[in-house]
């Protein structure tokens, strides 16, 4: 799950998103429910920063869509709050001795929202849809040779090579949801998805709101809430006002500069949890002088991560010199750089570089890249480096990135869980996303080996070695892991903020 998946969401900048409503008291849609809702169950109104583009989990790439779909669909396995993979539609699984066959035992008696039974065929259909139609998550099945239904409750996945991160690949997020074939072929899935999750779609008013009602037959137990209405509020200040006035009870769109003050007064609860996302900048190693590690290291010493984080995120992020956050079991404490303009100048001297001007590419899709770049420009001017900021819309940005048309750029990777997702595509010589053209045979070897290693401790050791080299070579210059920030009314109980930004209202309830 790459940047694209979250693109709409993170562009929570006031103007760049689809959003609307929630401004008023349009809370009650009572009566319009199409049944299934527990009359006594309370309605939670949640303000999203953007409107979903569509609700087909296999096709959307917008975070807003996944916020809704998280509550509508299930995957075979799903990450718990520590991001460890747990049973969901699959009750259990095992792997063959050669690690090439995974067998999943499915939960019995699960029904789709339309009453149809969930079977192994649905799993096969869903996965084959992603693979055959080459949807954007097809890459997750890259090592998969075959998916087949052994019987109604057994699915077998054959892989070409040992794939220890298969669970993360098929369960990491709802883009890998199990969908209903009829729902797809009828063409309804984009606006009226039918899943197996704790809530089902009730009403979708374009530009205004999406309402879900509780699925009383949910395999994990009926939700406490009667319904959840998602409204779309692009303005953080508006979302906050709505939360304070009680029109909404939950939002992830708080004005960052106010979060600290909000937590203290007790009228609103805020949850701030480090996420698995990371933001970085990278220099184009195909272009001199950035092929020289000394120059890249100079940049790594020349930026003050603390100040960048404070400026771009109002402190709602943790500086990090590697990709994986402190909270992950895969975290490796390695931070060789410090803000040291003197050292940076020395390194540039050593490399024989003077009057360096960097064509630095950022995108208005992610406004924090623009803020951070401006701060970095100010900092790097101290070491005699001029940062020419080039702001582009995301389409052009992606084009230029793919063509290598940049000296350096800043972006983030979002929602990764397994270390292989954090490092392979970005730093392996053959990595699909190695746009900075980094190539180090030792790193390639370590990553190849780690990708097939099934022993977690061994894997960790291999990744640690690779990471040290990557950071020393300054292939990416890592900046920070942003926090997941959400706020809700004190009446909302049983809700937890998760590091993968998934929002699940299954266990939540509203007290009077």
């Amino acid at each position, binding site marked *: 799950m790459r940047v694209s998946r979250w693109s709409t969401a993170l562009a929570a900048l006031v103007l760049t998103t689809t959003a609307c409503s929630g401004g008023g008291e349009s809370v009650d849609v009572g009566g319009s429910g199409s049944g299934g809702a527990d009359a006594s169950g309370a309605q939670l109104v949640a303000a999203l920063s953007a409107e979903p583009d569509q609700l087909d989990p296999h096709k959307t790439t917008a975070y807003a869509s996944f916020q809704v779909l998280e509550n509508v669909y299930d995957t075979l396995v799903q990450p718990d709050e520590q991001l460890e993979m747990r049973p969901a539609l699959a009750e259990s699984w095992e792997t063959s001795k050669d690690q090439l066959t995974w067998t999943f035992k499915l939960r019995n008696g699960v029904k789709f929202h339309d009453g149809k039974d969930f079977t192994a065929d649905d799993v096969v259909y869903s996965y084959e849809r992603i693979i055959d139609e080459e949807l954007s998550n097809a890459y997750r099945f890259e090592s998969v040779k075959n998916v087949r239904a052994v019987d109604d409750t057994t699915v077998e996945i054959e892989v070409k090579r040992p794939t220890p991160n298969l669970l993360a690949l098929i369960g990491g997020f709802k883009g890998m949801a199990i969908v209903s074939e009829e729902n797809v072929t009828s063409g309804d899935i984009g606006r009226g998805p039918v899943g197996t999750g704790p809530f089902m779609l009730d009403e979708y008013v374009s530009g205004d709101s999406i309402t879900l009602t509780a699925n009383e037959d949910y395999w994990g137990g009926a939700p406490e809430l009667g319904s959840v209405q998602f409204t779309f509020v692009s303005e953080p200040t508006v979302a906050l006002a709505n939360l304070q006035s009680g029109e909404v009870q939950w939002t992830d769109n708080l004005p960052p500069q106010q979060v600290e003050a909000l937590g203290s007064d007790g009228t609103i609860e805020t949850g701030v949890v480090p996420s698995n996302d990371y933001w970085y900048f990278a220099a184009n190693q195909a272009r001199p002088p950035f092929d020289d590690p000394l120059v890249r290291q100079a940049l790594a010493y020349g930026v003050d991560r603390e100040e960048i984080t404070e400026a771009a995120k109002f402190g709602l992020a943790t500086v990090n010199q590697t990709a994986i956050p402190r909270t992950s079991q895969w975290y490796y404490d390695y931070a060789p750089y410090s803000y040291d303009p003197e050292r940076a100048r020395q390194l540039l001297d050593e490399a024989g570089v003077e009057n360096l001007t960097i064509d630095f590419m950022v995108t208005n899709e992610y406004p924090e890249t623009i803020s951070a770049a401006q*701060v970095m420009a100010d900092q790097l001017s101290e070491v005699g480096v001029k940062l020419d900021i080039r702001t582009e819309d995301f389409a052009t940005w992606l084009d230029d990135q793919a063509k290598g048309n940049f000296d350096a750029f800043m972006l983030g990777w979002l929602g990764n869980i397994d270390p292989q997702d954090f490092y392979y595509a970005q730093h392996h010589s053959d990595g699909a996303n190695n746009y900075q053209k980094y190539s180090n045979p030792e790193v390639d070897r370590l990553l190849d080996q780690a990708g097939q290693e099934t022993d977690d401790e061994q894997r960790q050791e291999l990744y640690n070695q690779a990471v040290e080299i990557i950071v020393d070579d300054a292939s990416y210059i890592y900046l920070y892991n942003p926090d997941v920030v959400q706020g809700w009314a004190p009446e909302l109980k049983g809700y937890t903020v998760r590091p993968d930004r998934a929002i699940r209202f299954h266990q939540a309830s509203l007290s009077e």
Partner: protein
Amino acid sequence: MSDQASSQAPEAPAAEQRFQTLRAVLANRLAVVGLLVLAALVVAALFGPQLAPYGINAIEVEDRFQSPSLDHLFGTDELGRDVFSRVLVAARVSLQVGAIAVGISLVAGVTLGLVAGFYGGRIDDVVMRVMDMLFAFPAILLAIAILAVLGPGLTNAMIAIGIVYTPIFARICRASVLSVREEVFVRAARSIGASDFRLLRLHILPNVLAPIIVQTSLSLAFAILSEAALSFLGLGVQPPQPSWGRMLFDGRGFIEQAWWMGVFPGLAIFVTVLAFNIVGDAMRDALDPKQRSVIESRGQS
């Protein structure tokens, strides 16, 4: 150009007319204030960076969101930059966009209008139908669509605004040409064998200048307004270059804590546009009392 024209006789001596125009404009006290404001803007545009008390990109994160004070007249923004300095320096961008964009529409529109009005017939039909097509879009929407093609940025914003305001110049110019084309002095010149180019340049153009000059002044106002709107939508000037519209765009999320981020850049746009409008109106009153240019051109914005 008009000096040469005066030797060809029967039109009003240009120098005298210019003097009268100036006197009429100066007689309007409001217009004088407008002119003074514009003069101040030109100074800010030329010497902004020298006059600004702080660097426009001097970031002091610990000084962010300072309210207006003697140190920071207009306060500081979310990165701790001095808002006054940025507003001052941004005057250059605004005037630059105004001048270049209007320059584009002026040259393109007047050329097309002259040709269409002078030759008439099929050329006129084709040119004016194309203008109609451009006119069929709401201006800001057309500008947005053009920027979607060209990509956001200062240069492209100027081109987009230039294209959007071309039809109004073409129309005004064409209408004036039509009314002058059959005048005695034009027919006289034609009868003695003057070339088309000579006719256009020496006889027609000088006589259709008045409405075009008025339109130019008013279009400057709308071009500046359009640039601000486009930058406000994130499509115009890109950071770190300061622009009033962009400053409002960036300040949107912070207005509750820092009202000054929302007030001063907007005020700068407003005062500038107002000054251009007032001066433009005064010039219209002096040059071409019958024309309703503000309304016509604003009707398209």
